[in-house]
């Protein structure tokens, strides 16, 4: 077994299910999440880039999951995207005991537009800063702040106040104000 095969084996066995749950945050559908993770794994491990550490490989795969998710969303028919907003398949429920809060948050996430959803996941799961999210999505810092501001507002309208979501670096600076 080559090095990359060992890393792949270890990554899939130890973190495969977590990667699927991460992808499902974005897709809202567990089976689509599984497909997304498999595509990301194939893309990452086919590149010839040395992936010798499962931890580093996981971060790399999560990045590919996000890229493929946003790319595929652009190509999708509108009805497919809307379908996710209207209904949540029973199959998407977690295999383990899921709290009501978790399901509420995941359901609320699905009402966000994909780019907003991606920003929320990068911010609150991947713990990235605004500039890091901007680089990851190839958009400006200001756009990231706007996306997060809009996303949090929409989530709060569904979930109630989200105290931890209001951090200093995503406060919007008014533009066009003269002193």
């Amino acid at each position, binding site marked *: 077994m080559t090095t*990359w*095969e060992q890393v*792949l*084996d270890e990554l*899939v*066995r*130890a*973190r*495969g*299910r*977590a990667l*699927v*749950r*991460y992808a499902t*945050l974005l897709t809202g559908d567990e089976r689509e999440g*599984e497909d997304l*993770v*498999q595509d990301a*794994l*194939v893309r990452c*491990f*086919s590149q*010839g880039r040395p992936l010798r550490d499962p931890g580093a490989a996981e971060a790399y795969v999560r990045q590919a999951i996000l890229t493929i998710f946003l790319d595929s969303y652009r190509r999708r028919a509108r009805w497919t995207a809307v379908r996710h907003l209207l209904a949540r398949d029973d199959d998407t429920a*977690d*295999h*383990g005991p899921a*709290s009501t*809060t*978790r399901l*509420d*948050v*995941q359901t609320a996430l699905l009402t966000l537009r994909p780019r907003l959803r991606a920003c*929320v*996941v990068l911010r*609150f*799961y991947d*713990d990235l800063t605004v500039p890091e999210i901007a680089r990851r999505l190839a958009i400006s810092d200001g756009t990231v702040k706007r996306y997060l501001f809009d996303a949090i507002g929409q*989530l709060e309208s569904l*979930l*109630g*106040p*989200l*105290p*931890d*979501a209001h951090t200093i670096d995503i406060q919007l600076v008014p533009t066009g104000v003269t002193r």
Partner: protein
Amino acid sequence: MSPDLTRTLHDAVDTGPDDSPFDVLTLTGRIRRRRTVRAGVRGGVAVGAVGAVALGAVYVGGRQPSSVLPAARADAEPGTCASDIGLLPAADPGRVGLLPSTDGSWYQDEPSAIPPQGTDLGTLVGRFMSPVLVRELSPGARDAAVAELVRSANESLAAAEERRSSRLAAPPGGVPLTAGEVAALDRGVEVARQQLELAQTSETITGVGDELDSQVLVTHDGTVVASDADPSPDPRYSWTSSPDRSVVMGLTSTELITCASDGDPGGEPLPAGEYAVYVSYAEAGGRAVAGPWSLTLVDMPPVPTGFPGGFPVDDVPLIGGRLVSVTPAGGSGGEGWDVVIAVEGDDAAREAVRLLDDDRTTYPALAPPPGMTFPVAGWEVGIAASTSPDGEPTVAYSIRRG
């Protein structure tokens, strides 16, 4: 209580069962194949760039064919990877057969006949084949297919009539329909009615499903080395019948990569050589096999060299072979280039398309439809199968600024 977004998302991802969601062996095979093909393309470009004359076994990354193919295993179940094809009983005459496809269509003199065994499926430079599967259609399956067609057509007609009635009774926005809108609704109903009549009376019928559970098996020296066990998507199950509804025909899809056996995930492109293709199918009390049909696989030659200055050699991946001509379009090459490369393989044009982008969807025709172009690094690339004046098969590129 207000949810903590950060903690909830971490819980959602990081807590829960850690069972592996995938078959790692299958995933490894998929990755190995892609890595090998990429290495092959890169190797071809690199060697071509320095003017080397020959590059052996591009597709297998220099490994010996014998080390790539699954070794025969006496304990393998009949019809599975590494098994002896002779373990499956051969029926004569067979109830299934294969025809080579060309442009996604096919031809046979007797439309209701099962193709004879022993014919040639062609020579391929790519590692994907899509012959036509021809098989018997039982009266039961035929009747079920007709019933399904009629049921579906009845549903379409009912929907068209309902749409027409509801629009006439309650026009959108309360605005009366124009004469043209009413005529369009009438046409919709009429077309649905014609489709229903066609479903009830047509000689040729279409359907999905394969009552014989056919499976394409590729063998080398009598050992199964590849199969279409897990094609995705699987077009075998969409078929068209002969006018007398006794046989049906549909395109198959088989990646010519080694199958998984005994801990080996497979996924290696089959090396160049002669292969025998069989079709295994369900027979009373078990499975039988029809075949063989012959198949020749060739290695892709190195990418040609000697392109003029300004040619986008790093932007547009070309197929390997002998450079027949390269001509600037519009005089200077600023607008684009026309390139002709001689290369063996019935599927050379299809393979040329695949080399433009490994992620491009594989399609069954041996060449892309005329007029289709593919965007590559700021260029629009057209590809066609052609023949040189001395009869040599070629691939013709039309490369234009995007």
